[in-house]
């Protein structure tokens, strides 16, 4: 796929390969409460990305020696399904990339969750990439934040992210896979709009101080829309619950509206 693209211009004037402008996000759909067993869950469909997040806890710590008497410990797992990319069938088990993403995602939620309220417990957050097209860690953490709130765990803010990067010498928002692979730079960022803080920042490529400055502004601007979608997803979940309660006939195998 990539080799066909190398000769193509990623950006022509203000138009990107898929027709977007420089600050346009791909289509974004968030659904909260998609899993039955998980305490909280969310599905994020972002462009071609499909990422499922599930949260368990606060619950008893395992293994026990990891227990923190003052706060909850956070475990984050990011994994890509072996069928998630358009390329070959993936290998089983986490690779170094997945472990690193799990680690930086964990730091986001260690900041975001009021862990001091739940000493001697753990919260497990799992992000499963079912389909990938660039920007999966951002989609995953955006989903995980909705899942954490869906689980009823107190947080400082809904956190969300957008990637910003450089293609054809221009800064653009929300890079897809081709733009990430063929472009000059990609920065996944997770922010909290309430505190105006950056909770995750990873950069590769070559950028000037001005690029970084401008890129950050683009991220904070784009994050507003992502946040709106998160809030909407959580509201819709409770509207669904309300409707279910309203016409509650707990008959055998009652069919509920399928969201996934």
């Amino acid at each position, binding site marked *: 796929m990539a080799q066909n693209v190398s000769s193509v211009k990623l950006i022509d004037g203000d138009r990107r390969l898929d027709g977007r402008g420089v600050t346009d996000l791909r289509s974004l759909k968030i659904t909260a409460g998609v899993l039955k067993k*998980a305490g909280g869950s969310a599905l994020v469909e972002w462009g*071609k990305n499909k990422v499922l997040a599930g949260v368990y806890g606060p619950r008893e710590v395992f293994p026990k020696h990891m227990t923190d008497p003052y706060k909850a410990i956070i475990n984050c797992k990011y994994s890509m*399904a072996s069928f998630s990319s*358009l390329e070959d069938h993936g290998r089983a088990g986490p690779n170094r990339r997945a472990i690193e993403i799990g680690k930086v995602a964990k730091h986001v939620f260690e900041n975001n969750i009021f862990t001091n309220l739940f000493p001697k417990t753990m919260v497990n957050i*799992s992000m499963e990439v079912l389909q990938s097209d660039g920007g999966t860690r951002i989609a995953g953490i955006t989903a995980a934040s909705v899942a954490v709130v869906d689980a009823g765990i107190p947080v400082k803010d809904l956190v969300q992210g957008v990637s910003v990067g450089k293609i054809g010498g221009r800064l653009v928002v929300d890079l897809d896979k081709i733009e990430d692979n063929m472009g000059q730079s990609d920065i996944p960022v997770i922010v909290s709009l309430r505190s105006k803080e950056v909770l995750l920042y990873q950069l590769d490529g070559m950028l000037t101080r001005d690029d970084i400055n401008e890129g950050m502004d683009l991220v904070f601007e784009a994050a507003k829309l992502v946040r709106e979608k998160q809030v909407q997803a959580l509201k819709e979940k409770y509207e669904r619950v309300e409707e279910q309660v309203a016409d509650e006939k707990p008959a055998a195998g009652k069919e509920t509206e399928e969201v996934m």
Partner: protein
Amino acid sequence: MILEEIKEEYVKNLLKKGKRADGRGLTDYRPITVQKGFLQNTEGSALASIGETKVLAGIKFDVMEPFRDRPDEGVMMVNSEFCILAHPGFESGPPNERAIELARVVDRGIRSAEAIDVKKFVLEEGKVLGLFIDLWVIDHSGNLIDTAALAAMGALACTKVPKYEDGAIIRTEFTGPLEVARDVVATSFEKIEGKAVVDANDEEEIASEARMTFATCGDDLVCAAQKSGRGAFTKDELLGLVDLAFEKRKELMGKIR
């Protein structure tokens, strides 16, 4: 765990009276859905749900070398992953014995039914197509085998064979749909208080003494079976379950095609 013991007692006491907690009859399935073509980066996919249990099947083809003892055949592999977000009891790590059993039972069903002709997967000398059927358990409320089999067959039913050129697969071009010679359907029975229960949920599974799964590939053909758990079945019980499996097959077939 004390809560599990309470649930077990509850399920058993109800079944003594021939009842189930959710009001179903003993041989009733929960609502079933199969959403084909759920993913775009795969050659075939389906999200199957039975009640609140959800399994996603993704199918990928790869170019590989044939097994040395079968140079004129392609490869088919079934894997399963119990995603930790599917159940509070699932832990990350390599597949455990339950995950391996699930994949192998589904694999046996499809393989013995000769549903996929792997001889057609030969590309050239020393190069064949490998068909990977990955079963992602994303929500576990019991009866994973039947749900996984539905997901696998739903995915195979919409799988397209990718084009092969100059030693590589072209992911966006296809030679045509994958031929599936027979549709495989699995029906599992859990034995609780001496009664065989179809489509047990996770609470019923805790109370179960034994499980029997029959996979069928025709109106009168069984293509795989697996007995699991400590309990036992008599010959008459097994034959009764075979009859029931054929009966249930009709119900499930409509969901795959």
